[in-house]
């Protein structure tokens, strides 16, 4: 089976909001979270989607 979309990583400031098998990056501030998400987006060739103010996911499309 070919997976079309996959969550490559999650970036959050609230660790208790995320769980599971994807890589989770915990950040102190919103700015740090945005910087980490921007870097991961470029590195992983995925798109950073915002699920809430505290949680970004990097998704491969």
């Amino acid at each position: 089976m070919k997976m079309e979309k996959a969550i490559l990583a999650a970036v959050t400031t609230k660790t208790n909001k995320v769980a599971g098998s994807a890589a989770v990056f915990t950040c102190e501030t919103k700015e740090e979270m945005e910087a980490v998400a921007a870097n991961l987006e470029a590195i992983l060739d995925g798109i950073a989607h915002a699920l809430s103010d505290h949680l970004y996911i990097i998704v491969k499309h």
Partner: protein
Amino acid sequence: MNEYTYPILFGILVGTAMRVYMLRTDYRQYPTYLHGKIIHLSLGFIAASLGTIAIPSIMEKEFTAVTFLTLAASQFREVRNMERNTLTEMDAFELVPRGNTYIEGIAVAFESRNYLVIFTSFIVTLCYLAVNLWVAIGAAIVAFIMCTFWMSGSKLSDIVTVEESTLSFDGAGLYVDNIYIMNIGLPERQEEILKYGMGFILTPKSFSVRSTIANLGQRQAILHDVSVSLGVFRDSGTPALVPLIKRDLNDGRIGVFILPQLQDPLRAKEVISAVPVLENAIQMPSKKID
């Protein structure tokens, strides 16, 4: 030299000229290779020869010679496969791909143009042999006019109205008018999108065309044509900067989000209006056979 020499030469000449006429390189950028052109010119020459020779064969009561035309049909079907394979291979390296529907349309056009060449040569040679040279020249001119007419299908402006619209963000959601496009998380990307992006709303003119513009292949063709004509603000490794089209489920309008390098809304509107309606996307839900 015999009585068939000049009619055959004339038929081949007209047929090959027809193929040259139909092999024009435009913004679709294909075929740009000199060798690609030579392939099609050679095949056009073969097609012209086949169409031409059918007439003297019939006149000489060599009816089995006509079965050569069936051979031609299978050969030209190969042309379609060849074009499809080449374009599909190349499509993976486009920043905004053509999409399979568009490729299929191009491949079919390449095949059918060879048949048009066969018909032209056939008719022209028939006129030459049955009447005279002047009638044959007249038939050639008529064939050119008809090919020009048939070669271009309808354009998007025939079936939809194109209007420029505003891009906006509601939280992380990008919208063209009220049509949701995608979720863009990073504020940096959102700024880029608002700076370089453009939005258009395509409203179907009738109920029947709703499914045509909803076709994913047709939508991809719009994005490809706009990106070719106006450039695209995108690179590999920036998947967030991707032109997209989404549909309003309530009324069948589609929202076009593009990232052109040439920031000219009027030009973009012209380009979208001139996008060909893909034959494979056309559906006629209101037509039925009684």
